[in-house]
């Protein structure tokens, strides 16, 4: 099912009389291709959850339209949209067993959709097998681990065969190990069912690792949409560049002068097509190459060996952050007592942004 969001806007009225209204989502325009896994990504308060709730029908957009395929579902209530929603806290009914929880949505079906008891049970067990909880069917949610509860929640959302599956921060309540495992699981389930799936997260790593597409949002405005790697490799502005990637991108104050980019006094790159102006320079940690003749010099703080890689922590007066972190191959050796390190930069890992607008300046 293809999902089209057309100029979607959500404005919350102010809480008190004098306060101003809050624009949670502003003019969201996007088409979600059929059968893909989409990650809505952004810091808290960016409107990603609101977008999800509008997709589910729990919240009505202030303006704009939502289409499921060719159906305009903007005015439809959730039950008529055929969506499955997995809540951040799972919202499993505590007084029902796993089986009853999964059966619950099926028992709501009316009219021609109504299923016989046997069919319901069969479907419940099928979906339980899909998420691998078929041996837990008679337990109560309080008797399950976090990861198991998550699977039950997904099973409950999937059992009525939704046109779209929505997941709200699906991994935030899990510990680190489970998180890795579960995100693979979600990916697998989505691949198997081919249900168009939208999930919300503030964790960019999570989004990058499983999404077919990611949508980066900030303060209600969509910043960039694309395949994770594309967005990473080609951020549209400083915000997106900073938001994606661990360790985060290093940002320097820089200046374009006479066709060349300067960080401090050091000329790091030729930029023949850019006019003279102040800029921000972003360099991914993996974009540094240890090079005694390199243009960029930094004061070495310390070195963290991480097996395959070495993380060099240094400082530069032009850096916006107190430290500059670069990741280089472990083969690179730095002698004891070294005070200054020199880098050359991989051209595809350096981005410059307008100092005023923070928009990317293409080289």
């Amino acid at each position: 099912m293809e999902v089209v969001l057309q100029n979607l806007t959500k404005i919350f009225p102010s809480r008190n009389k004098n306060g101003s209204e809050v624009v949670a989502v502003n003019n969201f325009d996007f088409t979600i291709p059929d059968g893909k896994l989409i990650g809505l990504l952004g810091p808290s308060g960016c409107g990603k959850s609101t977008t999800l709730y509008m997709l589910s029908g729990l919240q009505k957009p202030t303006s704009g339209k939502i289409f499921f395929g060719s159906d305009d579902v903007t005015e439809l209530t959730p039950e008529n949209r055929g969506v499955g929603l997995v809540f951040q806290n799972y919202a499993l009914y505590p007084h029902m067993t796993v089986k009853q929880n999964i059966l619950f949505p099926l028992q709501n079906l009316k009219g021609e959709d109504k299923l016989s008891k046997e069919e319901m049970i069969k479907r419940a067990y099928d979906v339980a097998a899909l998420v691998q909880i078929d041996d837990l069917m008679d337990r109560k949610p309080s008797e399950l681990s976090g990861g198991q509860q998550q699977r039950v929640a997904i099973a409950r959302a999937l059992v009525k065969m939704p046109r779209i599956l929505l997941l709200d921060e699906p991994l935030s309540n899990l510990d680190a190990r489970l998180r890795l495992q579960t995100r693979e699981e979600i990916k697998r389930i989505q691949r198997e069912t081919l249900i168009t799936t939208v999930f919300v997260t503030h964790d960019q790593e999570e989004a990058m690792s499983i999404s077919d597409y990611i949508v980066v949002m900030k303060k209600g405005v969509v910043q960039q949409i694309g395949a994770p790697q594309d967005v990473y490799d080609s951020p549209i502005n400083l915000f997106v560049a900073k938001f994606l990637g661990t360790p985060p991108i290093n940002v320097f104050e820089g200046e374009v002068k006479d066709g060349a980019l300067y960080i401090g006094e050091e000329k790091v790159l030729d930029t023949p097509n850019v006019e003279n102006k102040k800029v921000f320079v972003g360099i991914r940690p993996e974009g540094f190459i240890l090079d005694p003749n390199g243009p960029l010099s930094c004061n070495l703080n310390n070195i963290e060996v991480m097996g395959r890689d070495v993380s060099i922590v240094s400082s530069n007066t032009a850096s916006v952050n107190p430290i500059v972190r670069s990741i280089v191959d472990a083969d690179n050796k730095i002698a004891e007592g070294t005070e200054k390190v020199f880098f050359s930069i991989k051209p595809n890992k350096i981005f410059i942004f307008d100092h005023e607008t923070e928009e990317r300046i293409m080289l």
Partner: protein
Amino acid sequence: MADINTMHQKDMAKVTSKQKFVTVLVQVLLYFFLIMVAITVIFPFYWMINSSLKTLDEYRWSVPTLWPTTVMWSNYATAFSTASLGKLFVNTLYVGIISTILSLVITVLTAFAFARLEFKGKNALFAGLLATMMIPGELFTITNYGTVTSLGWLNTFTVLIVPFLVSVFYIYLLRQNFLQIPNELYLAAKVDGTSDIKYLWKIMIPLALPTLISITILKMMGAWNSYIWPRLVTRGETHSLITNGLRNAFTESTGDVNIPVQMAAVALVSLPLFLVFLFLRKYIMKGVSRSGIKG
């Protein structure tokens, strides 16, 4: 999962309009129901006000009027002066405040012991306490009267305060509330060498504040509404409480009661309670619901 798409293929426009209709209908029904109930609830109050503004004669008309033909605001002035409501207000407030404070202290200590400390026979004792709630309290009056008489407490404020300081219901409410505060906090306090009293004061009481506030309000309301006991153990205005004034003051020479004036007094007396209630409703609700009411 081939039928995913077919399952929801419906006439969207039809569904939309039907669903709009249902939503509106439900809202209308909801409001209709609530407003009908609200009218039923409010009617007696309206009737009270209506009656309080009538002359005694009009009140006795066989066909009651929906609004007095002559509006007797003076009934309120009469009510206030004949019942010496001012003095009774002060008495009631005094008894209410003192008994509330003492009652809170006792309730907090008792609830704390039941919720946090381990001692022999705890459960049996608690069950015994709860069981006393099931006995019709009217029977206590006679014996208690004997007790306070032999203690020489008649005609004092003590007699209005002390016998009702312990309420099993409040202990129960507060204990439930305390139980919901994680025991780890208590153990941590013990490890840090915090005394029980300090722990109670710094941690338990702030956390149970809504319950304590509702107890305060219930207790004040109790003082406001108590009637039989104060009548029995006090004489004259010096120690009388407000309800006694209400019942006694409006009897006519023939033994009839001037009901409109009495209604005016009831309205006057209910007013402070009502205002307090409006003001603190949030706390009452929190307090009662927070008690959790789990076994």
